[in-house]
């Protein structure tokens, strides 16, 4: 495999990884913002109104609280901010905008999720994960899934930084020498 073909394979994998992460974040945001009493992915679940949004947020706050990690005062702001953060990251990943920084932020968030899930599993907390909506059991499968997503986040971030650096090198090599330096 030549250097250029390896580079294009890397770029393809980066694009696929970026899209996969975008889908994951958008699905997670949808699961938290949709009306919690509606059947997932049904037409009723797409009818998001200010009232249903307020209920979904407070319902998600109960799931955050069940992790017994944050004081009640911090639970509500965190629960209100997380779905929108996931939505924002999902949209930015889908658009491919500022990919290095967005993928880095996504990986940090996935690292946080992974750490919290490991802690809860180690403490034998019988709780719902709340990752992609309500009534989702936190079990060994959640650990495997979150570990895989964290690894994917790392891979996408490394690829985004590496490809950007190579592009900068390629640009500097192809550009003519600086006039002052030539003198």
């Amino acid at each position, binding site marked *: 495999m030549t250097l250029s073909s390896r580079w294009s394979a890397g770029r393809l994998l980066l694009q696929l990884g970026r899209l996969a992460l975008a889908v994951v974040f958008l699905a997670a945001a949808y699961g938290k913002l949709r009306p919690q*009493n509606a059947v997932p992915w049904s037409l009723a679940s797409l009818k998001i109104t200010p009232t249903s949004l307020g209920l979904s947020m*407070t*319902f998600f706050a109960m799931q955050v609280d069940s992790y017994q990690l944050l004081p*009640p005062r911090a*639970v*509500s702001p965190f629960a209100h901010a997380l779905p929108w953060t996931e939505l924002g990251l999902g949209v930015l990943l889908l658009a491919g905008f500022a990919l290095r920084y967005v993928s880095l932020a996504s990986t940090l968030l996935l690292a946080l999720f992974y750490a919290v899930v490991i802690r809860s599993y180690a403490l034998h907390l*019988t709780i*719902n994960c709340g990752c992609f909506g309500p009534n989702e*059991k936190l079990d060994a499968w959640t650990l495997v899934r979150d570990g895989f997503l964290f690894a994917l986040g790392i891979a996408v971030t490394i690829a985004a930084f590496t490809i950007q650096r190579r592009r900068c090198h390629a640009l500097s090599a192809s550009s003519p020498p600086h006039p002052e330096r030539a003198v």
Partner: protein
Amino acid sequence: MTRSYRWNSRISNGHPMRILTSVAAALVVCSCLALCVAPTVAQTTAEWERLSAEKSLGNPKAPIKMIVYDDYECPVCGKLYEQTLRPLIDDYVASGKVYLVHRDFPLTIHLYSRQAARWVDAAARIGKFEAVERTLFDNQMAWSEYGTENPKGIIRPIVQAALTPAEFKRVERLMQGCESNSQNEIKGCAVDTGIQRDLAEGELLPVRGTPTILISAHGQQYPPMQGAISWPILRQFFDRLLSQE
């Protein structure tokens, strides 16, 4: 010729009237069986509903209904009761905003949880559910296997202290044949029927652990929540539900 083939050929060769008569006879037998079984099922359901009402607090017509599947020995259930359900009972249940329903879900991993549930159910049958539930959660560390005090598993004196002598005698009578039973043995203990029904209802949900909370309001049921939820966060959700009216 196999037996089934012979049977099929007999039916197919039989007179249509004979077949119709057989079908009608089968239907009559089934109907008689259903008529015999139905009243028993209805009676059991009515009894369970009556007991369920005894294990509930507040106004049944309250805008919010909250069902809690509990195990009396589970430490998280104790925490939920002390830190969340008590302020809820004193505030939102007392003011008629929430109807709180208790369901038993004694886990087999706990040594004394079924025995505790039996005492509470027996007390519920004489209208003393709240007092006995409260005393068992308040003194969880005294009788549970995770407790710091000895001897463990001795629930009788704790229940006795929460009731008058006359009330305790009535509860004791209901508990006849229950105290010697092991955790999973349900023969000869009349109180166990309600617990078994609660367990069956929970398994249908499905309840995967305790505590599990099921909230419904304005005809809408929300997905089950698991684990301990602090009172300020639960109140926030209830306030949202109440503001929908």
